[in-house]
């Protein structure tokens, strides 16, 4: 079966003002159902690339296709999640999850039922009517994840979604995320600073390097799925970690800090 490509970038670039080249000459194809990790040091253009794909900002050059159509603005098949949960404090969990339907005017019993189920799916049974300030940081991100699922988007752009959480919570949420997005339908791009995490989650790791922001390497991760935490100690896993390190080090050598 020929792979269906959902996202294609060629010679894609984004420049801010006169001097800041946030993304330069990005060439990539992302097949449907894959999980891509985007890893690289701070300021290398990861968020910018994500926001280009989401249609929140305009490219300055090159081509960017989603489902073979030029990206011209936000689209309903793309959903986003940020480092902060970005919940509306005055709304309960379920009301926050229903926000996408409210905005699209698609609130009905079916939407409410789905919102309810999404909250159960992310492990928030009995917290449907809690307000964000009554929830821990991890639980808030779960609400944000449920809201993302509620959009029905099958392209998920996650910008360090669990980056502000403690190690334990982050590992758990990573595993739950994998469980939710596995299968041939949902395409995920996951931004992280953490090399291990990037490899553990992904089918493919894009390594980005700064000034100008470039995709320096695209590494296929050929580890068995479903992933499990024991794999992170295998020699294969460590080879991948080393490969990513080499790409970053090779680039950073001789660069002013």
């Amino acid at each position: 079966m020929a792979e269906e490509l959902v996202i294609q970038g060629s010679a894609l670039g984004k420049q801010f003002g006169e001097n800041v080249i946030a993304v330069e000459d990005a060439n990539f194809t992302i097949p449907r159902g894959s999980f891509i990790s985007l890893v690289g040091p701070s300021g290398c253009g990861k968020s910018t690339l994500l926001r280009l794909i989401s249609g929140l900002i305009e490219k300055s050059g090159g081509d960017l296709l989603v489902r073979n159509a030029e990206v011209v603005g936000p689209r309903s098949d793309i959903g986003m999640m940020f480092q902060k949960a970005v919940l509306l404090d005055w709304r309960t969990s379920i009301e926050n999850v229903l926000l996408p339907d409210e905005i699209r005017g698609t609130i009905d019993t079916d939407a409410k039922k789905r919102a309810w189920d999404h909250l159960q799916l992310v492990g928030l049974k009995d917290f449907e009517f809690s307000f964000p300030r009554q929830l821990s940081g991890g639980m808030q991100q779960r609400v944000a994840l449920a809201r993302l699922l509620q959009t029905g988007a099958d392209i998920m752009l996650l910008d360090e979604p669990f980056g502000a959480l403690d190690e334990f919570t982050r590992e758990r949420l990573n595993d739950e995320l994998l469980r939710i997005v596995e299968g041939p339908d949902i395409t995920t791009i996951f931004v992280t600073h953490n090399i291990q995490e990037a490899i553990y989650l992904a089918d493919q790791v894009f390594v980005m390097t700064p000034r100008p922001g470039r995709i320096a390497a695209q590494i296929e991760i050929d580890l068995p799925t479903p992933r499990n935490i024991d794999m992170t100690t295998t020699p294969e896993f460590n080879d991948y970690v080393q490969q990513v390190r080499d790409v970053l080090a090779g680039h950073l050598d001789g660069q002013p800090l």
Partner: protein
Amino acid sequence: MSDIGSDGVLAGVKELSPIQKLAMHGLVFLIIFGGWEVGARLGYVNELILPAPTSIAYRLYEMFFVTGSIYWHYIITMYEATMGFIIGVSIGMGLAITAAISPVFRRYWAPYAVVFNVTPGIAVTPFIIAWFGFGWSSKIALAALVCFFPPFINTLTGLLHIDKDATELFRSLGSTKKQFFWKCQIPSALPIIIAGLKLAMTGALIGTIVAQFFSASEGVGILMQRFAFRLNMDGSFAALIVMSLMGLSLFTLMEYMDYKVLYWRRHSRMEEVGSKRKRKWLAENGDFSA
């Protein structure tokens, strides 16, 4: 005030039992007012400068319960302050919303509001009296003028300082500007808007009373001045206390609004509102888990 981190000025006060607290309050009250009373009665304090608390209390009693002379003044003053408040707040918030929506308006018109603010509103009183006359309208106008700025600047600040991620979230969901305004901007700005309203409330009362000092035939301000001119100090002080009572009742009203509207800033209120919404949801939709 929110119970989230409300320690504030009370931090470090040792917890006492309720009875001990009551006793403490009583003791402090007694020291202040007992000392004052004794001082006045023994002639250490000239009654023409500072009348004894009991004389003031008696005068208050007379105003409220014997002659009932205070009610009309009270009502008039509250009416003027409230009308001024409503007008000032409407204009202030209206301009702020316009400025938040239109960058052009913000750039070219809003600076005048700032110039306007740094001019002490009270100093405009003579003009206000000249323009609006000696009746109610000049009091209302001054009250409106004095209380216009805090709601203006607070509303504008609140509407513009929206979390960048929230903006992107709404955009990525395909939200219209109107939806974003009502579902995100307004609720996010409510806490600071309400803080502005509290300031405006105090301002409205000050504006009204100052305008009454200048020229009025009725109102607590003019009442106080009449007493003072006649060197009737207990009467003046009684009028002052009536003003405090007004301030207190208006303040309480604002605190109540704060409590009701900003439920997501208080843990106890969140529980209350959360379970209310739960009951409503279950009544409307049934339990999806069942």
